C-alpha cells in the first residue's frame, strides 16, 4: 500500500487513551498516511475482528543511532556472531532489504526492522554528542521503519559551562537553541551535569547537587536550572531530559530527589529513574519517596529504565560511572572523551536474577511502575541497551499486566537486598491494556510534544499496531499481527513486508544572532572543527514547529 492509498482497519478493539477510547470496537480510517474520520464505501479493508488496536509504539529513550552505539557495536563481535540477521523478504522498501547483526546493540537496519516487528514506529536516540550529530543522522538514515530524532548532550560542554559560570543565562539559552538547530537535534539532554567535565579534568566526578566543579565555581544545580529554563523559554516540544548525577551509586535517590526539588515548578523529564532510585548507605530501594514526589508534581515526568535479566550493554556519556562498572565487573571497557562537549563510556554486562544488586534494580523498576499514580508521566523504557534490549519490552509489559508472572519471577530472584522493597511486600496492581497503551505510546508522544503521534484521532500519523489477544502477554506484545506506519502496512500476518524510510524529527528554535560571533571566537580558540563546518547540512525533513 502506498502512502496515498486508503485503508479501513475494521472490527478491532481500540485502545486510544489520548482520545478517551478504552476498548471500544471501531474502525480506524487511513488516507494519505494520516488517520481520517471516514472513508468512502469500498475502501480497502483490513479485518482485525477480535484483535487489539493501539497507536504505534513510541520509544522516548533508546540508544540506537550514535557514535557511542557504534563504539559499542564494534566492541561486541561475539554478540553479533551468535545473532545474525538475514535480510527480510520485503515487498517494498525505501532502500534494499539489508541483512545485519543483532545482540544488545544491533546494526542499524536490523534495529529498524526489529522495532517495526515489535509494533514501534517512533524512536528517540537519547544521547548524541553535538560534534557527532552528522554520524547520528547517517545512522538514522540507515534505520528504516521508524520516525526518529535525537537528544543533544549539554551540561558538560565548555561553552555552556562558561555561560553558567558567568551567569549568562540568556546567552546559554541562545547557545542551546543554536546547538539544537545546528545539530538537527530534538531536545536538550543533560547527563551527569558537570560530572563528565569533572571526570575529564581529574576531579573524577561530582556527587552532590551543590558540589563545585573545581576551579570554575559551577554546580550541577546551576547547570540544571540554566538548561531547564532554556528549554522552557524556547518552548521546546520536550523539556530537558535529565540523567541525574550519581547514576548507579547506592544512596543516589537523595541527589535525584534534590534535583527534582531544585527544578520545582519547571517542566523536566527524568530519565531511567530506576538507575537513580537507590537508598543508602548500603544497597536498598529508594523508589517510594521518588515516585511519590513525581506523583504529586505534575510538571515532572519520568521513564523508568527497567532492568531485565539477561545480557545488556551499558552505553552512556557518563564516563565516570563506566569506569567504576569496569572496575567492579572486570568486563572490557571503552572510554572516549569528546572535546569541549562530553564523554562516552561502554561496558557490557549480564544481569543475573541470582545477583542481589541486579534483583534489587529489577524490583525498584517495578516499584516505580506499580506505585505510579499517573501513567502519562511514568513511561516505559529499559534505557536500551543499558537495562536490557528493547526486545525485552514484551516481557516487561507482562510483568506489569500479569501479577502471577511477576510473583513467579520474584520467587526466583535473589531476595537478599529486597527487604524494605514494596514489591517484596506484595504489590497487587496489574496494568490494564489502556495503561499499557499510555506508557508505551500515548504518554511518550505527549511528553515528547508530538501531537501527531501516539493516538488514533483524525490528523494523527497513521501509525497503528494490531495485536492478537493472548493470555501470554509477552507473546502477544512480541509479535503484533499488523503494524502500519505512515499508512504503509509494514507488518502483515506477523511478517515484515515493507520498510519505508523514517522521518527525521528535529527542531530549529530561534535565537539572538549575537551569540554567533562569541561562538566563532570560542571555536577559533579551542575547537579542532571549523565553526563554518560544524552545523549539519542536508536534513530534508522540515523541523517540528517550536
Amino acid at each position, binding site marked *: 500500500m502506498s502512502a496515498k492509498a486508503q485503508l479501513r482497519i475494521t472490527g478491532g478493539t481500540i485502545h486510544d487513551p489520548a482520545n478517551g477510547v478504552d476498548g471500544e470496537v471501531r474502525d480506524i480510517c487511513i488516507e494519505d498516511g494520516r488517520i481520517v474520520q471516514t472513508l468512502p464505501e469500498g475502501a480497502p479493508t483490513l479485518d482485525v475482528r477480535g484483535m487489539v488496536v493501539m497507536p504505534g509504539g513510541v520509544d522516548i529513550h533508546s540508544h540506537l543511532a550514535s557514535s557511542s552505539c557504534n563504539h559499542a557495536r564494534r566492541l561486541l563481535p561475539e554478540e553479533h556472531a551468535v545473532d545474525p540477521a538475514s535480510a527480510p523478504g520485503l515487498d517494498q522498501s525505501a532502500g534494499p532489504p539489508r541483512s545485519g547483526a543483532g545482540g544488545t546493540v544491533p546494526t542499524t537496519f536490523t534495529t529498524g526492522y526489529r522495532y517495526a516487528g515489535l509494533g514501534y514506529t517512533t524512536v528517540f536516540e537519547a544521547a548524541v554528542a553535538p560534534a557527532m550529530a552528522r554520524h547520528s543522522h547517517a545512522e538514522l538514515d*540507515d534505520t528504516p521503519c521508524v520516525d526518529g530524532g535525537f537528544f543533544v548532550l549539554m551540561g558538560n560542554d*565548555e561553552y555552556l559551562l562558561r555561560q553558567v559560570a558567568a551567569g549568562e543565562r540568556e546567552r546559554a539559552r541562545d547557545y542551546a537553541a543554536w546547538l539544537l538547530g545546528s545539530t538537527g537535534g530534538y531536545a536538550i539532554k543533560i547527563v551527569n551535569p558537570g560530572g563528565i567535565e569533572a*571526570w575529564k579534568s581529574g576531579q573524577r566526578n561530582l556527587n552532590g547537587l551543590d558540589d563545585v566543579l573545581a576551579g570554575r565555581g559551577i554546580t550541577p544545580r546551576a547547570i540544571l536550572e540554566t538548561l531547564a529554563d532554556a528549554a522552557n523559554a524556547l518552548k521546546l516540544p520536550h523539556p530537558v531530559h535529565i540523567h541525574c548525577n550519581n547514576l548507579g551509586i547506592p544512596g543516589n535517590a537523595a541527589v535525584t530527589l534534590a534535583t527534582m526539588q531544585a527544578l520545582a515548578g519547571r517542566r523536566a523529564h527524568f530519565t531511567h529513574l530506576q538507575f537513580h532510585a537507590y537508598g543508602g548507605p548500603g544497597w536498598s530501594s529508594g523508589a517510594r519517596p521518588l515516585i511519590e514526589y513525581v506523583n504529586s508534581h505534575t510538571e515532572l515526568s519520568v521513564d523508568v529504565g527497567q532492568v531485565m535479566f539477561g545480557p545488556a550493554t551499558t552505553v552512556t556519556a557518563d564516563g565516570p560511572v563506566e569506569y567504576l562498572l*569496569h572496575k567492579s565487573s572486570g568486563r572490557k571497557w571503552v572510554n572516549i572523551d569528546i572535546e569541549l562537549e562530553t564523554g562516552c563510556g561502554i561496558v557490557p554486562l549480564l544481569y543475573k536474577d541470582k545477583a542481589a544488586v541486579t534483583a534489587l534494580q529489577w524490583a525498584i523498576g517495578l516499584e516505580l511502575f506499580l506505585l505510579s499514580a499517573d501513567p502519562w508521566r511514568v513511561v516505559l523504557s529499559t534505557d536500551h541497551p543499558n537495562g536490557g534490549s528493547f526486545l525485552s519490552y514484551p516481557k516487561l509489559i507482562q510483568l506489569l499486566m500479569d501479577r502471577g508472572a511477576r510473583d513467579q519471577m520474584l520467587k526466583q530472584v535473589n531476595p537478599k537486598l529486597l527487604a524494605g522493597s514494596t514489591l517484596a511486600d506484595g504489590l497487587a496492581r496489574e496494568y490494564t491494556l489502556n495503561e499499557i497503551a499510555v506508557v508505551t505510546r500515548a504518554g511518550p508522544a505527549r511528553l515528547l510534544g508530538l501531537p501527531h503521534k501516539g493516538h488514533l484521532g483524525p490528523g494523527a500519523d497513521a501509525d497503528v499496531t494490531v495485536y492478537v489477544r493472548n493470555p501470554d502477554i509477552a507473546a502477544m506484545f512480541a509479535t503484533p499481527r499488523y503494524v502500519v506506519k505512515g499508512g504503509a502496512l509494514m507488518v502483515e500476518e506477523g511478517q515484515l513486508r515493507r520498510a519505508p524510510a523514517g522521518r527525521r524529527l528535529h527542531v530549529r528554535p530561534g535565537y539572538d544572532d549575537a551569540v554567533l560571533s562569541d561562538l566563532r571566537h570560542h571555536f577559533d580558540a579551542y575547537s*579542532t*572543527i571549523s565553526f563554518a*563546518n560544524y552545523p549539519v547540512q542536508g536534513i530534508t525533513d522540515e523541523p517540528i514547529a517550536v
Partner: protein
Amino acid sequence: MTGTSRVEHVTCLGCGCGCDDLSVTVSEGRITEVAPTCPVGRAWFGDGSIPLEIQRSGQPASLDQAVAEAAELLLEARGRMLVYIGPDLTSQAQRQAVALADLLAATVDSATSPTAAGGLLAAQQRGRAGATLGEVRNRADVLLFWGTDPAPRYPRFMARYVDPAGTHVPEGRKGRTLIGVGVGSDSAPKGVDLTLTIDPSEEITALSLMRASVQGHAREQRSPGLIQAIAIANRLAKARYAVLVHDAEPGDEPRNPLRVEALIALTQALNGPTRAAMISLRAGGNRVGAETVLTWQTGYPFSVDYSRGHPHYDPAERGTERLGSDRFRAALVVGSPALDASVAGTLARMSTVAIGPRASQAPFAPRVTIDTGVAGIHEGGTAYRADEVPLQLRPPLPGPRSATEVLRTLVGAVRAGLGQSRS
C-alpha cells in the same frame, strides 16, 4: 572555467589529522595553492585533475551502458565476489558500496585489513581509553609518543593538536611535557623533553612493566631501558591528562603485533591514578569512515563476508589474500585501491568493475570502469577523522559525477536484477 577563486574551510584527507581549515586556491579549474602548507596535504590535492572516462571492455561507453553491464557481471558472480572499498570515498559512497556487497552476497575488504586491523582487534578484546584530537589540544599535559614521529606522515599533528593553547593548557606546547620512545627503527619525534630508545626485543616487557608500575606492582629492574620505561610510566601517572600517541599504520619494518594491545592496557591502567587517552594516528583518505560505516551496517569494522546471507566476520583472513583461491569470480573495486602487484595481477585475471577516482587507470584492466571525483576534492559529503569525528567535506572543484550517485544507480540496477521493488 576561468579566473581564480578561493574556497575556505576545506577539509583535507591527506592523512587522518582531518584538518578542515584549509584555504584552497583554484585557477583555470586547477588547484594552484593549498594553505597552510603541508607536504602531505599538497600531495593529496595535487592540481585536482582526474580522468573522466567511462569504459566497457576498454571502449568508451555511456553511464547507463556501463552500469547495466556492471550489474549483469556482478549478478552473475553473486555469492562469489569481492567488494573492495578504497579510502578516497565519502561515507555516503561507502554506504552504497556496502549495500552492494550485501545484495551481492560478497566479501568486503578495505584498506584497513592489511594495515590497522591489529589495533581494532585488540580494542575488541579489551576496549580502549581514547579521546578526540581536541582533547589532546585542550587537556594533555604529558604526551608519550611511542615509536612514532608524527612529522613525516602527519605533518600538522603537532601544529594543530600539541603546540596551541587549550582550555586546560593555556601555555600550549610550553605547558606540556613531551616524551618520545623510539623502538628500533620506529623513531621518536625531535624536540621532545625526554627521549628513550628501547630495543624491539624489550618493547612488550617494557610496556607490561610500565602497566604493572602504574597499578602499583613495580619490581626492581636491571636493564637501563626498562628502568627508564618505568620512570616514564610514573611520570605519566602523575600527569593531569596523559596522552599516548602511536601510529596505527604499518611502518617500514614489521612491528611487534602485541604493541597496540599493550599500549591500550597501559592507557586503561593509567585511568586509575589519573586520566589518560590513547591516540591512534591513521593514514589518509576516509579509511576510518569505511570502518565506521561497516560497523553500523554489519557490526564489524573490516573483513566482512556476506556469502552466508548475513554479515560474517573473518578478521584473520583478508579478502584480497583469498583472491588467489578460486573463491571469487568477480570483484567490484570502489575507490582507488592500495593494492600490491600480486593482488593487481590476480585481479587482472578476473572479471572486475572499477568505480571511483582514477578507475580508468586501474592496474588490472577492468571490464567496466567509471571514473568519479575524489572525496573532499570533487565530492561533498562526510569523511571521518582518525579519531572518528565526522567532518563535512567542501569540495573546491566540481566533479564529473559522484561516486555516491554512480553506486546508488548501480544498487538500483542490481535490485532490479534481483527482482526487488522499491517504494
